[in-house]
């Protein structure tokens, strides 16, 4: 139940973010290179990096739970769906830590 609900919540968040992302990147052509560069500078501030990490978590959770759903669609891990879920989440946390480490020099 929780996996299903959080899967949906993360999916909706990512869908909304996608269109924000497209509009932001389009500023390169809409208003020019210097506007886009100043937006990127703002995004290097700690608050936005924190939001980025939330976004990365949403991607990892939704993506890896999605892999589990795909596996179940082809008949893999139906009986052991809890173990598959735990494995997916361990991988998600590991990748998340990797992204935190990568972002660390920008925060400090």
């Amino acid at each position, binding site marked *: 139940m*929780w996996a299903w609900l959080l*899967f949906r919540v993360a999916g909706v968040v990512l869908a909304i973010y996608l*269109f924000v992302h497209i509009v932001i990147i389009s500023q*390169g052509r*809409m208003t020019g*290179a210097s506007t886009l560069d100043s937006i990127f500078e703002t995004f290097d501030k700690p608050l936005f990096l924190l939001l980025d990490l939330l976004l990365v978590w949403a991607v990892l959770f939704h993506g890896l739970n999605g892999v589990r759903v795909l596996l179940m669609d082809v008949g893999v891990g139906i009986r052991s769906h809890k173990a598959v879920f735990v494995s997916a989440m361990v991988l998600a946390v590991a990748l998340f830590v990797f*992204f935190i480490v990568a972002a660390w020099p920008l925060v400090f």
Partner: protein
Amino acid sequence: MAQETVGTASGAATGSPAVSGPVPVGAVRDLDRGQLGEARGGVWGWFMQRVTAVILIVGLGTHLVATHILSIGELSYDNIAARLAGAFFVVIDVALLAAAIYHGLNGLRMVLLDYFWNARRQRLVFTYLLWAFGSAFFVFGLWALWPWIT
């Protein structure tokens, strides 16, 4: 807990085949239609959601590593231009644009159709509106990327 079962009369979209779990007697027909999960959104929508999911796993993985790990702290108009000078990232980015818009809107569609619009015509109108919105955004995204690509 049977988090991936179609356990309700509405055939709630869970993203996988029905596995087990109690189902109200009167809901058997709906459960039949819900065998593929998200069947209320149509089998094509269900299938394409899986196809775009695979594209996204590969494409988004590449995008995140290349853009946000390798180029972390160096993102700029010119940095994007350098990446999009090669065909590899043009293919990745355009495929991502199309797959992400489809997957995102189709996902939203399946979530919303679980709660709203039971009349077939309303559901079709909603679906067509999303196609119009998504197509427009794909063209807009391509337009925005064009100076970098060419």
